[in-house]
């Protein structure tokens, strides 16, 4: 514990140093990034120990805030979330040093790094805090720091709008959390998590209320579907290394909160599981659909975060149902898959955002349809991005497949239940269908993202002039890509690493959990073998082709465009046209707007087609709601209409009303 706190304070010091050195951007960046790197590296040690089930270290200091106490403990669940958090933050910090170089002089990098470091610290604190008030404090600090990072380019109106939406959303979420903690703590008489748990077990109604509030509060941060509206706004606005951290790990603090609460609140009723399941399905499917319709690279990735959060929720839902209905296999595999996906998503989503960042950094545009042919110009970035894309599509032999595999196993397992009880097996059915659909659509989406951005010919001068980023931007991507492959090739280790955390979550005897995991381990071993086989065949074929082509003619020509003589880059398929059939198919949900300027005359000089797909929920739900509230409030403004007589009248009426109320 001490080591962890030292690490965090190291990061914090780095941040403060960066702020104080603000005069010189060079030194500020060095200090801020250095603090983050050193602190995260140091913090990873205890985090790993905790993940692997080292005895829980906790620390309790008195705190003068009433009801508050500085209680922190590093148990397996915290460790599980801390490892990806610190790892990704570390890499993002390295990446940021080069990414932000372009802003030197234009912006105060000191402030930016200070915010980044405090974002890291607050995330770390959120994950270890064991006292409600401390947790909320860290939670809000996290929101504030990330808010200032999102509004890094605050001179742009769009960015300010995004920041506003972000802070408002997260604040309204926090309001629910405030209510939840206050209610629990009032019943428990203390804000310490241990006490909260005890009372919740005693009062099921209260527990249910708390859970719903938590789903809203934490779900806003995590990006559950109706509450996700801030995500596609904020993530594109933030600098890319920040987007990576926010999308890769910060939104996971929401998941952490839910898991922690599930641990605290004791055995869950079945409807909690159902709720999570439904959320998972909607977020997953709709998330990937909206991603498919985007042509802003970072926005697309943001929607994919929603999708992956959906997958995680699916896993947690199955797990909860398993616990509720006493099916250990379902519980262990469901939670296991969900939690493993937390780590995996951190890896590949971080990777993808960093890749998108490099593209943005080099070409200056996030517009997919203006890119193309970047793989030739940015081989490192392109290759890493490809790995990430394959991983997020859940393809073997990469890590994404492993966690989805576990969730599938859980779902199939739940199907194998007793005859006749259709109801108890619907979840499995739903989960399988959803995961399959998500898988297919994700493949579609990332073939599009990778194919249009990195393959073919450049669609604009920006893309044509792009070149590879420097080592500080390449290294993190390479490391993350390696991690994705590694976790895919050695899944067994990854799964067994979950055991201590799962023991806390599923409340089953150790024997049962290990047994289930062992049961899951054999297939995983075989999968590893299959992967090996695959790679062997690939190698074999590559060599075979080399042999075959040896001594034969290998020519370079233009693309065979069905006999068309002079293909130009602008004739290529675009992202929008690539996705069009699918968006057309799901037009009912997506409600893509199309503006067409049709070509006129024999020699049309201008024709244009624009499409954009705004978020259905913010369009149909939130904007109208806010507008309605605003109109309602507007009417009340007549109260203050400037006539002194009326003001005095208010006083008199108040008095008379009070008299009649209290004396009459």
């Amino acid at each position, binding site marked *: 514990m001490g080591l962890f706190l030292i690490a965090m304070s190291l990061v914090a010091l780095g941040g403060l140093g960066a702020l104080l050195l603000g005069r010189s951007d060079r030194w500020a960046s060095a200090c801020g990034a250095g603090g983050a790197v050193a602190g995260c590296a140091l913090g990873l040690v205890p985090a790993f120990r905790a993940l692997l089930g080292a005895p829980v270290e906790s620390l309790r200091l008195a705190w003068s805030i009433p009801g508050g106490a500085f209680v922190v403990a590093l148990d397996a669940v915290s460790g599980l979330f801390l490892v990806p958090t610190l790892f990704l933050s570390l890499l993002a910090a390295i990446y940021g040093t080069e990414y932000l170089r372009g802003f030197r002089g234009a912006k105060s990098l000191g402030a930016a790094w200070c915010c980044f470091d405090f974002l890291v610290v607050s995330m770390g604190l959120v994950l270890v805090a064991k006292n409600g008030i401390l947790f909320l404090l860290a939670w809000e600090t996290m929101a504030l720091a990330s808010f200032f990072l999102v509004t890094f380019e605050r001179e742009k109106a769009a960015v300010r709008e995004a920041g506003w939406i972000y802070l408002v959303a997260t604040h309204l979420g926090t309001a629910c959390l405030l209510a939840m903690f206050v209610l629990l703590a009032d019943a428990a008489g203390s804000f310490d998590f241990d006490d909260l748990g005890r009372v919740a077990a005693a009062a099921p109604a209260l527990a249910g209320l708390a859970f719903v509030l938590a789903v809203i509060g934490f779900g806003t941060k995590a990006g559950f579907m109706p509450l996700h509206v801030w995500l596609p706004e904020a993530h594109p606005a933030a600098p890319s290394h920040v987007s990576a951290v926010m999308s890769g790990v910060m939104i996971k603090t929401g998941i952490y909160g839910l898991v922690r609460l599930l641990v605290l609140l004791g055995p869950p009723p079945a409807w909690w599981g159902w709720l999570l399941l439904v959320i998972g399905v909607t977020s997953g499917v709709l998330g990937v659909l909206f991603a498919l319709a985007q042509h802003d690279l970072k926005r697309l990735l943001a929607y994919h975060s929603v999708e992956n959060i959906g997958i995680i929720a699916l896993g947690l839902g199955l797990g909860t149902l398993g616990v509720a209905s006493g099916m250990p296999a379902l519980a262990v595999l469901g939670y296991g898959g969900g939690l493993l996906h937390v780590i995996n998503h951190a890896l590949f989503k971080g990777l993808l955002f960093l890749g998108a960042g490099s593209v943005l950094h080099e070409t200056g545009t996030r517009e997919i349809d203006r890119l193309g042919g970047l*793989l030739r110009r940015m081989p490192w970035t*392109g290759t890493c991005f490809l790995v990430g894309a*394959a991983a997020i*599509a*859940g*393809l*073997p032999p990469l890590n994404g*497949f492993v966690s989805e*595999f576990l969730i*599938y196993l859980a779902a*199939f397992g739940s*199907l*194998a239940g007793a005859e*006749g009880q*259709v109801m108890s097996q619907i979840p*499995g*059915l739903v989960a*399988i*269908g959803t*995961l*399959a*659909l998500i*898988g*297919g659509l994700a*493949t*579609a989406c990332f*073939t599009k993202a*990778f*194919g249009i951005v990195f393959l*073919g010919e450049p669609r604009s001068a920006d893309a044509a002039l792009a070149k590879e980023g420097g080592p500080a931007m390449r290294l993190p991507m390479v490391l993350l890509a390696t991690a994705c492959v590694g976790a895919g090739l050695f899944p067994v280790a990854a799964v067994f690493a979950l055991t201590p955390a799962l023991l806390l979550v599923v409340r089953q005897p150790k024997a049962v959990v290990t047994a289930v995991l062992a*049961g899951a381990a*054999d*297939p995983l071993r*075989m*999968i590893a073998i*299959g992967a090996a086989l*695959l790679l062997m*065949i690939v190698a074999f*074929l*590559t060599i075979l*082709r080399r042999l*075959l*082509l040896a001594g*034969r003619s*290998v*020519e*370079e*020509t*233009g*693309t*065979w*465009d*069905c006999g068309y003589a002079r*293909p130009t880059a602008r004739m290529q*398929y675009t992202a929008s*046209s*690539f*996705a069009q*059939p*699918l968006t057309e198919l799901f037009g009912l949900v997506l409600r893509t707007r199309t503006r067409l300027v049709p070509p006129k005359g024999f020699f049309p000089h201008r024709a244009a087609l624009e499409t954009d797909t705004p978020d259905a929920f913010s369009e149909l739900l939130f904007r109208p709601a806010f507008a309605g509230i605003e109109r309602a409030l507007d009417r009340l403004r007549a109260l203050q209409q400037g006539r002194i007589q009326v003001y005095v009248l208010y006083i008199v009426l108040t008095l008379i009303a009070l008299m009649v109320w209290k004396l009459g």
Partner: protein
Amino acid sequence: MNWTVVIPPAAGLLLAPLLFGVINRTKALFAGRHGQPLLQPYFDLGKLLRKGATYSRTTTWVFRAGPIVGLSATATALALTPMGGLPAPVRFSGDVLLFAYLLCLARFFTVIAALDTGSSFEGMGASREVLFSALAEPALLLSLAAVARETRTLSLSGMVGSVSAGTWLSQGPALALVAVALGVVLLAENARIPVDDPTTHLELTMIHEVMLLDHGGPDLAFALYGAMLKLWVLGALLVGLAVPVRSGNPLVGAGAFLGGMVVLAMLIGVVESSMARLRLLRVPKLLVGATALAVLALILILG
């Protein structure tokens, strides 16, 4: 682990092209032509393997990787597929998923390889491919789930092994639905009529073929061979479920299986010569329908 386990994959590798031959012959028969020899696909592959290669300047290593990864993934899937009475060399609880996702991997690389050329035709083909496969995916997995639920096992070999005539008697309707769903998936995944027309000459209407426009020489050979293996693999699965001959005698099993495969090929031929390609907008309905059938089957089995 005795040597018999390598028979199925070996057979697959050898006989996959033959299916194409059979299909072509059937179509020729219906068209009243004499048609190409049964072994024509082998000759084609051989010829292609002997050729040199031509690559577009636009392309990168992805383009060259496409056919190889596609073929390797399908081949690995082949190693998971049981045939006749014989289980697959690689089998474990959950290989169903690996199977499905390996096909997905193959598709992924075929598609990006197509996009690598920057040709709008191949882009178009790719776009349709991902559309159909995205819809075929749930159908495939749900029908497999139905079988898995019925046979209480998660490995293909186990399923095919334990589906018997008895199962058909008890769960006939459900299995029939599953068979139909799988059939549709097979047609879609292998780009056959009514989903796609492999023999059309208008690139605008192609799906799978158009993605291979720029491939030549060994690469084209790999791509085609991959397609053939894919047909074989899915076919083997379908036949394995639909023709539950489970006598102890391996020869009988093998015979029944091969017979089934030939019949399947001829069926495909019949369909192709009797039906026209569906309009592209109709295809999704077909696939969603297949998914619905699979769900129905699952419900029937659960109930």
